[in-house]
């Protein structure tokens, strides 16, 4: 069961372009996280958001938690080849169950 749907599933862009990845659910989440995973490795945490409407910035990455805590977005400005990877949203619902999203595979072409 995947309660968190991500879009797009695949994204291939040129270096320097901007992009946004979306994470949506019909359920309310008490907190939401974004991870990045490279081939042959486990996911690595990028950010945690806990308050509806919260915006966090990490260098060229901007994360937003929806006001109703049912959705989130990740925006990357001026993408670089090092940003290539599988981006995963994940969260704890109000029943203390944890789910990962369906994943977005990003390829940045030099």
């Amino acid at each position, binding site marked *: 069961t995947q309660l968190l749907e991500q879009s797009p599933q695949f994204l291939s862009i040129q270096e320097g372009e901007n992009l946004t990845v979306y994470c949506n659910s019909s359920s309310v989440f008490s907190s939401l996280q974004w991870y990045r995973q490279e081939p042959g*490795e*486990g996911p690595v945490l990028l950010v945690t958001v806990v308050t509806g409407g919260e915006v966090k910035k990490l260098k060229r990455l901007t994360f937003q938690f929806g006001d109703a805590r049912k959705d989130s977005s990740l925006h990357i400005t001026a993408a670089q080849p090092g940003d290539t990877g599988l981006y995963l949203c994940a969260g704890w619902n109000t029943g203390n169950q944890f789910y*990962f999203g369906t994943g977005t595979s990003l390829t940045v072409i030099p």
Partner: protein
Amino acid sequence: EAGVVQSPRYKIIEKKQPVAFWCNPISGHNTLYWYRQNLGQGPELLIRYENEEAVDDSQLPKDRFSAERLKGVDSTLKIQPAELGDSAVYLCASSLGYSSYEQYFGPGTRLTVT
């Protein structure tokens, strides 16, 4: 500080055979997770432990999968008998607690069932 350790890294078995995966979490982390991940998809939680107690095993296929975390430290996940559809990467993660705590992942075990 050592990260989450998993072994083996790769395992190839024939269907109907048993297989076991081992995980040693980061020292002091009370919460341990086992996930299954198919290529290009998000990990699916199989079981979560708080110390020795399995607090969420709702997604664990209990007819063939079992897990244990003796003494609240390292953990073993077993499949018996394995099926072709069990081919996937099995990830172990640990954290200080649940909810908004960061999860630290091991490199995973890639299982191929032939």
